[in-house]
């Protein structure tokens, strides 16, 4: 169960807004988090508390493939992002690193900045405690649930390599 206060944004929040490229000469998550959202919301870093939830409208995360974007959000303490729709690469990156994303136009519509939300990832429900309303998010495809359950793509791949008969060992020996 995830619980936190809402930071609300509009459409097309791009990866340059989430983490400007001028900070990409490092890859330390906490260093990146210090600059999260700064070009569109200088106060985000000051306001963000562990568990907080970002709510945005359409096409959240458009632009670059930089995984630094979901990494910076996660390292800021944000527990989940809810949007009407997500950009494709951002969606994949977030799942791969274990930042939960939920698509729910209804929840976005009915949620304001500062509202308190409670998210049940297993049930796919978003409970707006401030407004006293509950919403459902689109379920993850089964394939993606497997990655999420494994704890991210690296863990998922590690399992796969174990299961391919002698897979990991073979690759190592071929060296």
């Amino acid at each position: 169960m995830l619980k936190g206060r809402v930071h609300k944004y509009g459409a097309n929040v791009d990866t340059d807004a989430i983490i400007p490229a001028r900070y990409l000469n490092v890859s330390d998550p906490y260093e990146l988090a210090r600059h999260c959202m700064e070009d569109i919301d200088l106060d985000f870093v000051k306001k963000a508390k562990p568990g907080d939830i970002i709510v945005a409208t359409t096409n959240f995360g458009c632009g670059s493939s930089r995984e630094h974007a979901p990494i910076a959000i996660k390292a800021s303490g944000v527990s989940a992002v809810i949007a009407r729709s997500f950009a494709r690469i951002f969606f994949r990156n977030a799942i791969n690193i274990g930042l939960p994303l939920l698509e729910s136009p209804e929840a976005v519509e009915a949620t304001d900045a500062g509202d308190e939300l409670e998210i049940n990832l297993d049930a796919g429900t978003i409970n707006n405690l401030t407004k006293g309303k509950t919403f459902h998010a689109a379920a993850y495809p089964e394939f993606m649930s497997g990655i999420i359950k494994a704890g991210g793509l690296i863990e998922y791949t590690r399992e796969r390599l174990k299961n391919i008969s002698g897979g990991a060992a073979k690759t190592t020996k071929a060296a």
Partner: protein
Amino acid sequence: MNLAEKILAAHAGKERVSPGEFISARVDVVLANDITAPIAIREFWKLGLEKVFDPKKIVLVPDHFVPNKDIQSAEQAKILREFARAQGVNFFECGQMGIEHVILHEKGLVMPGDLVIGADSHTCTYGALGAFATGMGSTDVASAMATGDIWMKVPPTIKFVYKGRLPKHVGGKDLILYTIGKIGVDGALYAAMEFGGEVIEKLSMEGRFTMANMAIEAGAKAGLFYADKKVVAYAKGRGKRQPVVFEPDADAKYEAVHEYDVSGIEPQVALPHLPSNVKPVSQVGRVYIDQVVIGSCTNGRFEDLQVAANILNKKKVNSNVRCIIIPGSQQVYMDALRSGYIEVFIEAGCAVSTPTCGPCLGGHMGILAAGEKCLATTNRNFIGRMGSPKSEVYLAGPAVAAASAIAGKIVSPGDLAT
């Protein structure tokens, strides 16, 4: 099946695939750069392997902050260098390098029919070769470096057909800006864009690379062209592998088909702060500019420099404008040098740089101060993309960029006094 489905089916070892289906597909090329590779390498080591699946299929190109602009970017690039040397993967940097999406096809590393994944969103550029090429993140690349395959959801395809004849000074950049202006920055979200029609058949390879490059700016997973004779000749002259040409079936299914007659269109300009905020150049109004950048993975190829040089020849850059020219690769630089274009640029008062992504993403070599305006041939004009969040970036093709550098404001080449 359409083009995307045919390529994906072949790489998934299946007779057929359909949109929405999850597949595991074999990859031909895996790419990362100095921003994304350090994380990919860190994640790769977590898998407990000593070696990548096939060093010949992996390409690392430090291009965003090179030549290394500061100690931190040098440390990042060093991670790539050490990994590349130890693993024996393809590695190109200063002196033999260029921008990743200019050199991979130039060096024949990507061939028609390939499945390419890259930890850079503009990996979709190789769609111009009739390859399915898509951007992903570092963790996806780490997994693919280990296993040689990748999970993928088969996208629906939207077809774009361009009819008529291209007017003077209108090129691939104008066609793709026009298209993104029509469908929006999420107009092809999760989909593949397939480009065709009589205009495309006549379009140069450079023009096609520019169009495929910006498919991501419409949210697309890939931008694809059929590998016609022009593509096959281009690839055969460079690659060591044989091209594989996939052709869409006559009864292929598309999510939508858009037809545009482009005979009457003007050069296009995207205004701040979205690539979809597009207007014909005559409707932009009076916009005085502080900087022009001609280069990047979108428009840093030979033809782009040729277009710019023909306009800048025997002219001077406006005294209020810094005009920065960045050839996309050493080869482009050399070709431009031998053609006399570098001399044209320097005589006109331009700064000519070694290949780098540099200013496109606000890295180095042309950062904007608050309140400054830049007209660039790059691909994104998001807030803060080229420097200060209070600066503005306008996007256009090399013809409008060169003409505007002379005029000091955004103009069409046709508006320059001769």
